[in-house]
Structures are given as C-alpha cells and as structure tokens.
C-alpha cells in the first residue's frame, strides 16, 4: 500500500496534480491512498520550497511542477 501526498495550499495547480495522481493510481491498478496536505506548517516539514509537490511514502518526488498522470505512473512504478 503506497501513500501519496500532494503538498499545496489549494491553488489550481495543486488540484490538477491531485487529479493526475488519482488517475495514475487508477490506471496502474495499484493499492494507494492519495491525500492532500494543505497547512503551511505541515508542508514545510517536508522541506519543499515550491508547491505543488508530490510525496510518495514520505519521500519528496517532485516540487513546483504539475506532473502528468503518465509521469506520476512512472514514479510509482519502481
């Protein structure tokens, strides 16, 4: 079970990234939870400087970019 977190304070790019992450999980057919992290204090615990950021199992995979569903799929694949 993978845990995917989307860091961002609610701008439109964060919502797009969230949707892309959900689409990626669906198309891979893997067991994973996708959740938002929206308070600044919590976001800063990950040490990112730009949002939206994508975190998989506690590890920051990308920051400041809206990855496509395919790119997220590739990140989740390994």
């Amino acid at each position, binding site marked *: 079970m993978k845990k995917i977190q989307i860091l*961002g*304070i*609610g*701008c439109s*790019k*964060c919502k797009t990234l969230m949707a892309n992450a959900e689409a990626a999980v669906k198309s891979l057919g893997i067991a994973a939870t996708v959740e938002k992290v929206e308070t*600044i*204090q919590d*976001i*800063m*615990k*990950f*040490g*990112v*400087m*730009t*949002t939206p950021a994508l975190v998989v199992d506690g590890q*920051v*995979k*990308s*920051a*400041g970019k809206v990855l496509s569903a395919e790119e997220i799929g590739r990140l989740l694949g390994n």
Partner: protein
Amino acid sequence: MNLNSLDWRKYLLGVGAGLVIWWLIYRSLAPVAVWFTYSLLGLKSGSHLAAAVEFLVFESPKVLMLLTLVVFVVGIIRSFFTPDRTRRFLAGKRESGGAVLAALLGIVTPFCSCSAVPLFIGFVTAGVPLGVTFSFLVSSPMVNEVALVLLFGLFGWKVAAIYLGAGLTTAIVTGWVIGRLRLEKYVEDWVYETKAGDTVSEAEPDGPARIHLGLDAVQDIVGRVWIYVLIGIGVGAGIHGYVPENFMASIMGKGVWWSVPVAVLLGVPMYSNAAGIIPVVQALLGKGAALGTVLAFMMAVIALSLPEAIILRKVLKPRLLAVFFGVVSLGIMAVGFLFNAIM
C-alpha cells in the same frame, strides 16, 4: 533521456527552422495588414474604421508572436535557475549586493504565486538575509516577461525599459530598507524553527529537455493569456480609431498630483496577473492618463494584493507585513511621480 548526437542535431535544426519561419512571418505582418485593410476590404485610407482595422490585423499576430518567442526563450533560461539553486546562491550574501542579485534572479527563477510562503521560509531558514529575500519576493511578480512583451509591443521599447528599470529599482530599494530596519524579530517564531530541508535533487535537464521546457512554457503561458492579449489589442484598436484623446486627462493627467497616490491605493488590494491588467493600461493611456500614474497603478495591482497579505500574515507579524506593504507602495508612488515628471 538518452540522446545521441544525431538527436541533438535534429533538435537544433528544428529550433533553427522554427526561428527562420517565425522571422519570415513576422516581417510580412505589416504589408499583409495593409493589403487586408485597403485592398481586400477596400476601406478608405484615413478613415476611423480603416485605422482601427489595420491596427487590429497588424497588432494581434505581432504581439502573440512576440509573446510566444519570449516565453519560449524565458522558459529555456528558467530551466537553468531552480528556486533551490537561487537559494544556495543567495545564502550568506551581504545585504547590499545581495538585494541587486535577488531582484535580477527574481525575474528568471520560476515559481507560482501560491509558493510565496514556502519559498520565503526556505530562503530565510537557509540563511538568505531578510532584506534580500524581500527583494526576490517583490521583483518576481512585478517584473513579468508577459507584461514586458505587451508593453514593448503596444507602447514601444522606452515604456518597456522604464517598466523593467522601475520594477527592479523598487525591488532593490524595498529589500535594502527592510534589511536596514532589522526586522528579523517580526518574522513569526515558528519559521526559524523549521528546518531548512534539502529539496529534491532532480537530474539536470539536457539540451533537448530544455527545449521541451521552453515549449511547455509556451503552451502553459500563451495558452492562458492569449485572450487577455486580444482583449487588450481590441480595446487599443477601438481607442486608436474612435475614442477622443484626453478623455482621462482631467483626472489622471500629469497636472493632477494626487492621481498617483490614489492609483496606488486603489491598485494595492486588487489582484490581477500581468496580462489581465494590460488592457486597462491600454485604455487609460489611450485616453490621456499620464504614463507614470498608469504604470504606478499597474505595478500596485501586480505586486501587492489582499490575498497575498493574508497568505504572508502566516509567516510575518503585522508590523513587518505593514512595513513590507508600506515600503513597496511608497516605492511605486515614487516611480509614478518620477515618470510623470520626466516624460
């Protein structure tokens, strides 16, 4: 991405060919507009309608093409400047020189406005001086490549250069003043307790990947702002042909000294992106408003806003927030007065 030299050549050829085609089309825009207006539509030379149509047919593709080229080039330049690298570069710099560097880096370092707070914390906790951080935060939204292209396309290089210089100066002065006032204790305490985390170490993009980043930027930015550009040019075309000049001169003209502070006070709480505000600038200038007053209004709208104040309040105590908004507002007013005086 694994690319051999053959692929490399293919990309360079593609970009080169694209530039040549761009230039050929760009050069033929003016004669085509003349041909369209006077030969195809048969409009009478010197009429209001002919002037408006020619303006519209010439300016729309011209500005959109300039925008595409500049966004593409800026997109490639930005692939060299990540927020992480900028932070490392600015950490430990002295206030004075650091503010100048930060203002310049603010132009080319990509970040979306919703990242202002994480960026602020990331900079401050990594040892970037407070004033230098503010220079960066001011210049990044205020000196905007889309606004620069639009001003260049619609009003000429002088107005564009003034905008660039004024934006940089305001950013540098703001950072310098805040640095001098020693306001570090007015940053919320929890900020300094946050650890300066190492951000993702991403692989450096290679040449073709940078070209892709440039194309992505074109798709993203031009895709979002083209409608504002066309509205702006449409408004401009209407003014060009019809609206009497000096319509706004009595309330926003050079002779009215209080118009600058009023324009700034009106602009500060408002929020719009650079592209959205240009049609308004176009309309005001065309009707006789003074350049300094209009630039001040535009900079106030882009650089400061109520939503931004609410977000920044989470990391700044009220006094520092007030100093930040106060100094930037005063700086913008000074720019407005200066240009009303010299232009």
